């Protein structure tokens, strides 16, 4: 079963890193197939940027996200730009302090930047979001993402990022599991 995930935000929010870690967790620690793609060039540097992950239990032929099953939006511009590309019934996860969703959308809200700031570094909001995603979807094991974090980031920032992941994960568990 093929699933498409798009993580979008503004430059500097770490959406590419988040997509990479998520794809790695699926591909290396969940026995799934996963492909990550991103947009390149000057167009990708300002404004809304995104990373895209396709996961499947069989080889992935077409590597691009066509109609995301999940849209994670960390900025208003990203939400506005990418919401129309997602399935009407897509799972929407939004940065609740930065995004006001359409009234018609039932989005899951996570104050990722605020939670990251509580940990002392707003830069880990992306990893907080991954924690939230992991708990909210149940599509992969917590340990898989933690391993991907440990095997991707420099050792000195791993503890901070594991904390951020745990914070997002627990925030989701405290709320309502939706899938």
């Amino acid at each position, binding site marked *: 079963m093929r699933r498409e995930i798009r993580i979008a935000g503004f430059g500097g929010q770490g959406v590419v890193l988040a997509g*990479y870690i998520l*794809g*790695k967790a699926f*591909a*290396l620690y969940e026995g799934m*197939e*996963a*492909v*990550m*793609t*991103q*947009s*390149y*060039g000057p*167009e*990708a540097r300002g404004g809304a940027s995104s990373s895209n992950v396709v996961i499947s239990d069989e*080889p*992935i*032929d*077409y*590597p*691009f996200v*066509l109609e995301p099953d999940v849209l994670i939006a960390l900025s208003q511009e990203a939400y506005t730009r990418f919401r129309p590309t997602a399935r009407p019934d897509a799972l929407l996860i939004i940065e609740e302090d930065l995004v006001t969703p359409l009234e018609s959308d039932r989005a899951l809200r996570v104050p990722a930047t605020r939670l990251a700031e509580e940990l002392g570094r707003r830069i880990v909001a992306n990893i907080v979001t991954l924690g939230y995603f992991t708990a909210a979807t149940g599509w992969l094991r917590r340990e898989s993402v933690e391993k*991907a974090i440990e095997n991707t980031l420099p050792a000195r920032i791993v503890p901070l990022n594991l904390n951020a992941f745990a914070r997002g994960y627990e925030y989701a568990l405290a709320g309502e599991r939706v899938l």
Partner: protein
Amino acid sequence: MKGRAILTGEHFMHGDHACTEGAIAAGCRFFAGYPITPSTEIAERMAQRLPEVGGVFIQMEDEIASILAIIGASAAGTRAMSATSGPGFSLMMENIGLAVMMEIPIVIVDVQRGSPSTGLPTLPGQADVMQARWGSHGDYAIAAYAPWSPQEMFDLTVLAFNVADRFRIPVMVMSDEVVGHMVERVVIPPEEQIPRWERKRPTVPPENGFRPFLAEDDDLVPPLAHAGEGYRVHFTGLTHDERGYPDMSAETHHRLVTRLVEKVRRNADAMIRYEGYGLEDAKIVVISYGCTARSARRAIGQARAAGIPAGLLRLISLWPFPEKPLRELARQAEAFIVAEMNLGQMICEVERYVAQPVIGVNHAGGAMIPPAPILEAIEEVATRGARIGRRKASAG
């Protein structure tokens, strides 16, 4: 402290980075290049990695300098590579011929983008595949491979070095922006499982009249003496005799150029790579390569699910062209479909070997051809029969 040359293990890796790791695992210790999207990540990772393993990275003033530097480095005895994209590939063309004529092995990676000219720097294309074969002036032959995944960026870069060294030819890795920029699982095997074909080297000492361009073996490959080994060899882009001396006679020219071309023909079986999906009973055969083959595989899967006997012949080596499997398929197939991100290049090669209708699914580049237009072409052939002559189906 030195870094590991071979990153054995499972990775979630960028295609361009997998290419770099393939090169380093293959023993490449010299890279010269010039930044150009979408191949720049190869140069960047080389700049990081080569110093870790005692290799040399140099950013040259242009792609002409880059190809000369790798030919010079290889002449000195090191496996050497450059990576580029269309505009830089064009600049390298003249000296592909120099490497052919001097029989100095090199590997060039072309991460193809939308072209011609500056085209679409950040978006894919597959329109350099004929240039890879014919871009330099004169008669010559080379090998070229088209990876369809980051895993093959690794594997085929290793193969490219082996083929280049064993047969003393330039070898191209004809990637594309989709594969170069895609991140996917890459398994890097342990060192002992990475194949290594060595250069043929002189077996006589220098004073015994070594003739550097005398090919005595059946494979037509002469042994290669490196700079500084005492053989005092003359290498020239001019037509030369077995001693390496310029010889402006038609007879010597014919003998040399024929050997250079025949060398690749005769050893083609060692260079050719391809893969089939559902070909056993296929009546409609799709031929594709690189990123487009991913969509083609999806399309034939969908066609088979709908009861249409379609199959895929994926070209892994573009050059030498896998003509044997194609000739065999010509005994069973009713029609061929060639899907490629250009306006019809490898289709010309397919048409040389089959009598059946050959239909193109083409797009000028900028976006990967999705499965749908390939499936539509299959369905059309299945329901209405193939029309004679080429049909240009737009993927747009």
